[in-house]
């Protein structure tokens, strides 16, 4: 059952200006529910742009995007914000954590906008997620005091705390040693086993090979 269906997606930066960049040139991509997909490509090939469009963070210049069968093009800003909150969990490049905040506050952030968990249920739920990722003991530690692997676990905890259907990970292992990278990939594979759809942008062929499918993007076009 398809969860994401991208049809002839184009993305142009600085459209109609002398410095126009055609980042995505007619991308077609279907991803099924519960599938894990690696998106590979060299720097500047358009893979992060594609991830941003899939995650409703950026708007396409042309094309159609069906998410769970609904056309994203027709959604307004409020609806897109709700979709980002309820459907996607983002694992950002270089973690994207607030270093001066405690782990628990970083993980709680998506729940500020959540309708899935009531305020009185949130603390227990955060504890459960941190426990699953084996970082319950770091709950009240400031992020700046954590190692790279611990930070990435916190980033994944934040991505999954609102129980999204799709996890989008942008270079989740790029700053980690091989052992820690393997642990992180195992966590993502476990999420897939629980029915989550995993989309990983990576340069690392070892990471990509652990996914169900590899999608390669070259100059804004998909070469599967």
């Amino acid at each position, binding site marked *: 059952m398809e969860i994401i269906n991208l049809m002839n997606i184009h993305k142009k930066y600085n459209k109609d200006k002398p410095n126009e960049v055609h980042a995505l040139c007619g991308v077609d991509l279907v991803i099924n529910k519960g599938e894990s997909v690696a998106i590979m490509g060299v720097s500047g090939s358009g893979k992060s742009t594609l991830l*941003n469009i899939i*995650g409703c*963070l*950026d708007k396409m210049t042309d094309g159609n995007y069906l998410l769970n069968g609904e056309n994203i093009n027709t959604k307004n*800003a*409020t609806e897109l*914000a*709700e979709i*980002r*909150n*309820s459907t*996607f969990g*983002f694992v*950002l*490049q*270089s*973690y*994207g954590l*607030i*270093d*001066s*905040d405690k782990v628990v*506050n970083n993980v*709680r*952030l*998506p729940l*500020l*906008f*959540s309708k899935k968990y009531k*305020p009185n249920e949130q603390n227990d739920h955060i504890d459960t997620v941190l426990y699953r990722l084996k970082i319950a003991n770091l709950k009240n530690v400031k992020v*700046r005091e954590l190692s790279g692997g611990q930070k990435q676990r916190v980033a994944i905890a*934040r991505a999954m705390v*609102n129980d999204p259907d799709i996890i989008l990970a942008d270079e989740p292992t790029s700053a980690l040693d091989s052992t820690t990278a393997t642990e992180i990939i195992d966590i993502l594979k476990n999420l897939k086993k629980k029915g989550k759809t995993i989309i990983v942008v990576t340069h690392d062929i070892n990471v990509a090979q652990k996914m169900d499918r590899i999608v390669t993007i070259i100059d804004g076009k998909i070469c599967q």
Partner: protein
Amino acid sequence: MNKLRILKSSLFSTALLSIVILIATSFIMVVFPLAYYQSFARISDDDIAGYSEDIADYSAVSFASLENHQYYNLCKTFDMENFAGTASYGYVEYKSPDELDSPQVYELLFVSEKAANELPALQGYNFSKTKPKNYREAYAPTNLKNVYKVGEIYTISCYEGVYYKEWTIKILGYCENPYYDFYPAYYTESFLKDMWSNFLIFDDIPTYAKIESGLMMSDKSSEYYSNLGAYARVVREMNIDRKTSEVNDFFLYWCISAIILIVIVVMANYYFASDKLIKRSGVMYIYGGKRSTIICTEIVKMLLLFFIAMLIATMIIGIVIAETSYPSLSGETLASDYVDWKTHFTCVGIMFAAYLASISLGLIKLLRFKPLKALSNNNIE
């Protein structure tokens, strides 16, 4: 509800900065009105209440520093025939039948000949030039209108034994208006004083009456009275001092310097803190925050901080006003030597402008934030 949680989260994420802003803004909003009031709000072109050119060259004299300032003793040293003012000779008590508390006390004040005949006339008081033969003219306390009727003659007494004295007085009216009370203080706003709890009687000053201060209507200098042991100042000089010398710019300059310093400190801190805010806003955006909600929350947070600081300052200024203000001569408003509400809220307005200026750079930075760009720089910290 969600928005409140976002606001709370935003406040906690910048707790230290918020506390610093709150304390600094509250502090300056207390200090600034005090300085401003001393330097601007109190400046007036008005003369001291009760001042006139007719009395400008006479000396206001205080006898309070003398060991014995009873009338008979002062007569030994000073030319008391030139004394214009009032002398106090004890108290009388009256208890209203429906009052459970202790009786009210009313002071007997004797108006000197010079005061009654030569000081400029005051509204509500009109003593005859000469003392009538069978009674003395008097004004009764306003509270005793039911006891003393205008035009009626009464006998009033004070003390017992050798100090006992009795007067037959005719009530001309009530002490509803202020009467002269000269005191040569460094800063004097008025030569008039509310007399509502006094009997004002135009008669010879009793031997043992006490005189604190008054006007000496003679051609002698203030140095002359000072040399005799009193404290004396020429009325004209007092009037000039009142208009000029109470202005305290020194304190104001310090305050303005402090405001500028705080504006710079808040501006710098908030500007650099906005990097973290932008990053946090970027993360909030990808996890379901709307750009408009994030920005509005931040603006509301900063306004809330100012509002709380204003409340704290207003409470403190309120205490200062309550503790230091006194009824004006008209009795309708309160006056204070330190600050008033008008000055406080003027300064709140000035501080609000300074506050907006100090957070504007950081806010503009935040207003222009682009979520994706904020995240692409997400290793700022």
